């Protein structure tokens, strides 16, 4: 809500500066969004009166005016045509300063001297753009008076942020009421003196309400014989201060009264209302309306319209129709001041995608009692400014819309919620509360002892229950006066549960492994599935769709982190990063196909990726990162979490190199995947070098993470280590060799470590030689050479039989 300091002063005496006022209002909850000091460099501009107009002898477009400025009569040449003899006008004298034009000098126009200039509203900085003619002042303007006495050019504009629960603040009077609370001065609302003609309103209009639920009150007046024209200077200036643009006097008056009172008004051209009847009803199928903004609109079924006997002529509370618009030819108007239901208004606004100053007020809820005040205030102004004659009588379909409600307020409850009394003395507290409520125009009925009865004013529809009143009391009393306290007692609870702790531990390990944590958007584009080689029909393609996404990139919720992290690698390699090691702890979102209306499954995934293209430093240059670096990272994470039992089987994820990816299995369930991203995928992302990837399905991992540690007794007897090399077919997996070795004697064989691999002609093309060290140890004795030798022999024999292996010791 935009308003100015001087404008507010017309409604309330203010004895503090604009800056102080803004600060006090902010502290009371009316937040200042913007404050702007305005001043116009206008000098030597005064009121004059035209005494004669002649055509310029050489240029027909120019007029030569004689202008009385009290002390003398000046000859001024003017290009405008909208003035007549005896009009009061704004004269910029020789040497005058104007904001846009600068300094005015006398000069000759084709041999005729012009001593000054007649000003338009835009030249004075009152109106944006270019005004159609010069500004004609009201008859009562004082001849020779400085324009700065008529308009207070030096002012401060406030722009307040209005919360949706306080629509009453979307008006000058509303803001002035809050100022009154601060200054303790009395609100001065403009007085209205309606001059009604003999002619009755009923002669010209009948109003039928067919949708009372959506329009509980409808009031109106008829004003005849108006003169549509430019608004007077004072009105134009006020509209400027309020951030509105002048159109014509009738529209300007309705706009101004809306901003003054908060009640939206609409003026119809009375002569264009067919059948002299206004029908407030729901729209019918197939109806259309051309609105003031020149848009032909399909009316949604059952949205509230104002219609005549033939068709809708306005979208109720949103925008008028083009057909009954006020223009230069309008003679008679019907002025509407209604209360439309906020719910209907919100729905219609949403359907039309059309939000106006009026609809914005209706949808938040306006004062239930202000309709007649606003109607009469506007009628009064139309009478004064546009010379209209007000027919006697008015339409009012429901005088009792506002039903005051009584709310019980317990003084003790105020104390209970805020944590303290407003005063040490309980009865003084009560007085303070009553005082605050009175300031806010709440009626207070002294209750019996424990509580008081409070009646909120009609414009405070947001106050419905005791707590709302307590908030008002706290707000005006001042939040800063409420003493900060700490909880009265502690509660014993575990701050971080196991799940959070495990996440922390995994994150710490990954950081320790040199990975940088990233956070990427949960949204993906449908294009990524092709890019990461997910075939049609694959379950990963079944993603949650966002309704009306803003961009294609944000249209699905991700089912995999692969594209997210590849984008990060691409971003960094594009910026000359030579080594990218990243991870993310983030969710994927999987729809439940069997229950389409239930929430999706959200799975926490820990994923990481590494890519190296640069040489690195002296030590790193020889190291290329491969699948075993990434596998090592997972192993380290598991080690940190004390997860010991898991196995790896070859994987088949389409985004990976077909022979370089694996699945991690725990208790028969897949807990993660790792491997080298498919070169085609890398190419699709234009990433140089290889990317190795891991991801851990945190939800599947968590049950396998031990929550406590059990100490194992240290071995008392020495261990014995023996090495052996196994020549086997290439396709045999190392893990199977290790398992077989261990199976010979689970108790004695403590550790089997692969320490070397050899391939070469000597052992044959499709063979490999794997070297293992085997550690033997018994818990109850020192092993003898004989014992170890026997077991070792069994190992050799088993390997030879099972894998057709050749053994070298």
């Amino acid at each position, binding site marked *: 809500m935009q308003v100015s300091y001087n404008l507010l002063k017309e409604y309330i005496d203010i004895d503090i500066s604009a800056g102080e006022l803004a600060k006090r209002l902010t502290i009371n909850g009316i937040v200042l969004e913007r404050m702007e000091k305005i001043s116009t460099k206008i000098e030597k501009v005064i009121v004059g009166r035209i005494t004669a107009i002649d055509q310029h002898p050489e240029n027909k477009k120019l007029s030569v005016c004689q202008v009385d400025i009290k002390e003398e009569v000046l000859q001024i040449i003017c290009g405008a045509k909208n003035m007549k003899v005896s009009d009061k006008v704004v004269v910029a004298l020789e040497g005058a300063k104007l904001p846009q034009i600068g300094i005015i000098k006398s000069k000759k126009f084709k041999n005729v001297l012009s001593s000054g200039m007649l000003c338009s509203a835009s030249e004075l900085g009152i109106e944006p753009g270019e005004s159609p003619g010069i500004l004609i002042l009201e008859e009562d303007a004082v001849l020779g008076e400085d324009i700065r006495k008529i308009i207070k050019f030096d002012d401060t504009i406030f722009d307040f942020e209005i919360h949706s629960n306080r629509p009453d603040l979307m008006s000058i009077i509303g803001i002035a009421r809050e100022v009154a609370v601060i200054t303790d001065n009395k609100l001065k609302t403009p007085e209205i003196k309606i001059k009604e003609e003999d002619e009755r309103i009923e002669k010209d209009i009948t109003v039928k309400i067919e949708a009372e639920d959506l329009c509980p009150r409808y009031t109106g007046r008829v004003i005849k014989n108006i003169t549509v024209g430019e608004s007077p200077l004072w009105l134009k200036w006020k509209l400027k201060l309020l951030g509105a643009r002048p159109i014509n006097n009738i529209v300007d008056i309705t706009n101004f009264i809306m901003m003054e009172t908060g009640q939206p008004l609409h003026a119809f051209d009375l002569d264009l209302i067919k059948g002299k009847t206004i029908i407030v009803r729901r729209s019918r199928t197939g109806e259309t309306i051309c609105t003031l903004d020149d848009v032909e609109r399909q009316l949604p079924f059952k949205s509230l319209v104002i219609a005549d006997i033939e068709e809708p002529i306005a979208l109720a509370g949103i925008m008028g129709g083009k057909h009954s618009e006020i223009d230069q030819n309008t003679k008679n108007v019907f002025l509407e001041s209604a209360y439309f239901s906020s719910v209907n208004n919100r729905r219609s606004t949403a359907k039309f995608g059309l939000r106006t100053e009026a609809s914005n007020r209706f949808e938040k809820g306006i004062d239930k009692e202000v309709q007649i005040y606003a109607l009469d205030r506007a009628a009064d102004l139309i009478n004064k400014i546009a010379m209209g004659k007000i027919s006697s009588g008015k339409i009012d379909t429901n005088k009792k819309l506002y039903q005051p409600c009584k709310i019980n307020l317990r003084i003790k409850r105020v104390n209970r919620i805020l944590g303290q009394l407003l005063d040490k003395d309980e009865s003084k507290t009560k007085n303070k509360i009553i005082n605050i409520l009175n300031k806010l125009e709440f009626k207070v009925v002294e209750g019996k002892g424990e509580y008081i009865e409070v009646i909120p004013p009609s414009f405070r529809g947001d106050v419905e229950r005791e707590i709302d009143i307590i908030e008002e009391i706290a707000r005006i009393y001042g939040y800063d006066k409420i003493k900060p306290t700490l909880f009265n007692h502690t509660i014993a609870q575990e701050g971080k549960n196991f799940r*959070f702790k495990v996440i922390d531990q995994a994150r710490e390990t990954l950081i320790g492994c040199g990975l940088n944590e990233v956070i990427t958007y949960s949204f993906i584009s449908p294009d990524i599935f092709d890019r990461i080689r997910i075939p049609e029909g694959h379950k990963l393609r079944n993603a949650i769709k966002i309704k009306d996404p803003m961009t294609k990139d944000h249209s699905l919720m991700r089912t995999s982190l692969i594209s997210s992290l590849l984008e990060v690698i691409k971003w960094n390699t594009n910026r000359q990063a030579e080594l990218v090691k990243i991870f993310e702890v983030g969710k994927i979102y999987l729809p439940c196909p069997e229950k389409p209306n239930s*929430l999706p499954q959200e799975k926490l995934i820990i994923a990481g990726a590494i890519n190296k293209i640069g040489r690195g430093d002296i030590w790193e240059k020889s190291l290329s990162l491969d699948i075993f670096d990434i596998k090592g990272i997972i192993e380290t994470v598991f080690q940190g979490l004390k997860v010991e039992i898991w196995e790896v089987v070859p994987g088949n994820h389409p985004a990976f190199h077909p022979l370089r990816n694996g699945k991690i299995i725990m208790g028969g369930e897949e807990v993660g995947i790792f491997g080298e991203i498919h070169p085609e995928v890398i190419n699709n992302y234009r990433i140089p070098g290889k990317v190795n990837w891991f991801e851990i399905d945190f939800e599947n991992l968590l049950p396998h993470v031990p929550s406590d540690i059990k100490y194992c007794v240290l071995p008392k007897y020495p261990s014995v280590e023996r090495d052996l090399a196994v020549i086997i077919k290439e396709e045999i997996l190392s893990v199977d060799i290790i398992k077989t070795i261990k199976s010979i004697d689970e108790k004695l064989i403590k550790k089997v470590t692969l320490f070397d691999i050899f391939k070469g002609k000597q052992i044959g093309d499709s063979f490999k030689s794997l070297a293992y060290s085997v550690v033997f140890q018994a818990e109850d004795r020192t092993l003898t050479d004989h014992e170890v030798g026997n077991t070792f022999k069994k190992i050799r024999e088993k390997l030879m039989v099972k894998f057709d292996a050749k053994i070298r010791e």
Partner: protein
Amino acid sequence: MVPRKRLIIFVPLPGEENYKPFFILSRAINDEEGILLENKIKEIKKKIVSELNRIKDLKDIEKLRVECLGRRGVVTLLLRKLGMLSPEERPKAGQLLNQTKGEIEELLKTKEVEIEKLESEKKLQGEGVDITFPGRKIDKGTIHPINLVLREIEEIFLSLGFKMEEGPEVELDYYNFEALNIPKDHPARDDQDSFYITKDILLRPQTSPVQIRTMENQKPPVRIIATGKCYRRDATDSTHSPMFHQIEGLAVDKDITFGDLKGILTVFVHRMFGKDRKVRFRPGYFPFVEPGAEVDVSCLLCEGKGCRSCGYVGWLEIMGAGSVHPRVLEMVGYDPEEYSGFAFGMGAERIAMLKYGINDIRLFFENDLRFLKQF
């Protein structure tokens, strides 16, 4: 006349070729000869000392040791011949020889240690490295600045007795709006333009639904914080992002007041931003709290004097808060006459931006390593 024997022993002496006799030790039984023996021993010692001075490595020491004390060394040979002496003379000569042997051993040992020291010093001299080469470090990774801030905030509230909770990001309209006193067609719904999945399911625009889910699942007292991702239909620019993070807090108990809200959040601000920060509470509107409050902290840059970053007001808005609305308590089945509480919420990005002086929210989600590695 005492019978005399002339004894000639050939012994190699140190520094000479092996087995080449260069020194004949005459041994006599009589005094005269005894004296001679003594002289010879002295001579041996002298010779050894001069040899030792020449010696430069451990190998030569060992050789000398063998030549003197080895099985066929000169001292050993002399000792072996002691038996030829008369019984009276034997102890004296034996003692002399043994003493000499000890002295030689000592000399050899000393020289050995000396040479060892020299040799190891020499070895070290050849082992120089350029200590300005880079260390073979594991480049430690970094936590994302948003998570860094979240963790710091969590730590503060954990220490104040709060418990961490979480909730779904794809949420029911009911938990996000209705249960938070924002029914359908409520004007406050305009304040948050959300991403909808279906009519009743949306991406949560705030972490507040966790409040409701928590209260539905437990009886008071409640003291929780919840952090996580939220989503709003905002086009990306330097201050807006369609995805962001929030921290939500809730405390409900029999005697919680607005004063407690002020106290706890003041402690929070002081721990997060420093003891010197001023905290301001002013009325604010959120449908699920009443009285509602906006919490401001005195500007970190200008100390409250007013500058560009605080819009010349000296205060920075950091969170929304308030006493839990009785209707919210009613909806989860808590009796608002018996229980009261407070709730608060803040944006992690905003806190991080203020704390680290970051001026563009997009940096958090671009994940440029040059940015990330600063945290």
